[in-house]
Structures are given as C-alpha cells and as structure tokens.
C-alpha cells in the first residue's frame, strides 16, 4: 500500500514561514517523539529507526507543501501514523516482525520508571503497572493503540489526534474510550 503523505491542509493556527525554516531544528525537537511513537506502536527497534528516518525524510521532501495549518508535530505525526499503518499491513514484513532481533524488551522499558521509585517495593509496583499497560496496548487494535499513544505519551488533545490520524473527533473519542476500557480490564485482571 502506498503511503499518503500528510500534506493536506489541517485547520489550526501556526506560522509556516518559521515552522520549517530550519529542518535540523525540526529533527532535533520532534525526532525523538516520532521515534518513540513508532517504537511503541511496532515494538521493533530496527523498524522504528528505519520508519522514523523515513518519516523525517518524507517530511523534508514535502516541506514546501506544508501550509502551516496544523502544528509541525501534528503534521509529522500524521506521516508517522501512515507509515506505521502501512508497515503493519505489509505482508512481506510480517516475518521480520516475528523474527526481529531488535524486538523491544517490555521489561527493560518498564524498568526505566522503576529505577526512579523511592523504595524497592515501589519500584516493583511501578514496573508491574508499566508492564501491564505495555501488554494491554499489544492487545489493542491498531487504531486504538495509535489514539492511546498520541493521547497519553505525546499529550495531544482530541482535535490534534483527529488531525494526525485523519479520523473524526467522535471516532477518536470512541477509540480512546474503548482502549481505556481494555487497559483497565487488564489492570484489574492483574490484581
């Protein structure tokens, strides 16, 4: 499937002339966010690095078409969302997703927040909670996972998520609500 570049205007307020004037700055500010969104979506470090690179390259090539109607982050996220969707639906890459040597270790990811806990007990509890949500997000549908990640990891509001995913505002709310229901069910199942 061919990725559709997110160059269509999205109605928000932003100054185009300054937004993409220095693309190095765009990479510095948004590169990590793009990478972690893709990584949390695919759980494959190699694929995440490749797609993050691809996302920024496409944004660079299409920077003249950016009209500044949305924020740069929303625009970049829209490209990233499309890349993740295309990657997930690509049959030829399914083998590599299963056999990926760079598959993300959920335990290692959750350990990072546990390291900041005040006591060993709190560290264990924090790690378990983070791991539970990691596992719960794996069971979500791609749309639910995308919406959840954009809302809680990237702190985007419903309108921004709608712009980044191309969904209607009501559809975003439905996916987010269902995602939260499933995460909560998982958390309650662990207790």
């Amino acid at each position, binding site marked *: 499937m061919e990725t559709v570049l997110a160059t269509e205007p999205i109605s928000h307020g932003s100054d185009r002339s300054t937004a993409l004037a220095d693309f190095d700055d765009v990479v510095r500010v948004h*590169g990590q966010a793009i990478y972690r969104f893709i990584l949390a979506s695919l759980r494959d*470090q190699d694929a995440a690095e490749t797609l993050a690179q691809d996302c920024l390259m496409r944004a*660079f090539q299409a920077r003249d078409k950016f009209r500044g109607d949305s924020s740069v982050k929303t625009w970049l996220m829209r490209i990233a969302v499309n890349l993740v969707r295309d990657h997930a639906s690509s049959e030829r890459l399914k083998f590599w997703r299963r056999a990926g040597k760079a598959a993300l270790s959920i335990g290692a990811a959750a350990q990072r*927040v546990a390291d900041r806990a005040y006591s060993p007990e709190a560290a264990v509890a924090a790690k378990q909670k983070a791991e539970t*949500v*990691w596992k719960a997000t794996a069971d979500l549908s791609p749309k639910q996972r995308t919406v959840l990640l954009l809302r809680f990891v990237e702190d985007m509001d419903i309108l921004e998520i709608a712009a980044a995913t191309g969904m209607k505002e009501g559809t975003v709310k439905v996916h987010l609500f269902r995602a939260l229901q499933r995460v909560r069910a998982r*958390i*309650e199942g662990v207790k």
Partner: protein
Amino acid sequence: MSHLSEKEILECIAGETRPEWRDHIQSCPDCSARARQLSEPLRLFADSVREMVPIRPVFRQSQSYRHLPYWSAFVAAALLLLIAAPLFRGRRAEVAQPASAISDEVLLQRIQTAVAESVPGAMAPLAITPSSDSENAE
C-alpha cells in the same frame, strides 16, 4: 453529588473532563482512588515510552548536500562532461597515431612481400608437404 460512573471516570482520564466531574474527583477519595487506578499505570507507561532513545541517530541524511536543489546534480554532470570530453578526444588521437605513422615506403615493401608469397604464411607448411611427398614417390 453521587459517585461518578465508570464511563465518567474513563472520560475524565481521556481528557473529557467536565468541571463538576473534576471537582468531584478532587473532593471524593473513593472516585479519586478509582481514577488513579487507571491514570497512574498510564502515566508510568507513558514515562517508560518517553525515556526510550534510538540506538542510532534518527535522521542520518548527509547534512552537506541536502540543501542543494535537485538540478545541481545535472549541472555537476554537465561540467564533468565538459572537462572529460576533450581529454577523451585527445586520448583517441594518441591511440590512432601509430597506424598513420608508418611511412608509405615501409607499407609498400610489406605489400610487395605479401604478394610475392605463393601461399599465405599460415598455409606454408601445407604447401610444402605434398611436394616433398611426391619427390619421395619418384
């Protein structure tokens, strides 16, 4: 106000907070605890994702040429051709020179020698063998 329903708590966490719901969660320990049961794991999960950094730089494109317009490649290729074409032509002239350098006299002599031979050089052994056989027979 009665306790918030599960749906209302989920909507609060999703960011659809109404002022009265927010006020209630802040004042009601029961609803606050129920909201925290989901919001805290989500916050820890988000923190764990945010702390991930790529192993390699996210954007590895060479910084030196990416600001050049695409037609600069054609200009560079044209310049290369302009420089290389005269050199190539000179080289061809050098290669062709030895053939024309042979003088007419030497060439004529070679032709005379070739015409004087009864058979081509490569067939000479074949031409000699039958005659020697016939001499033996006599």
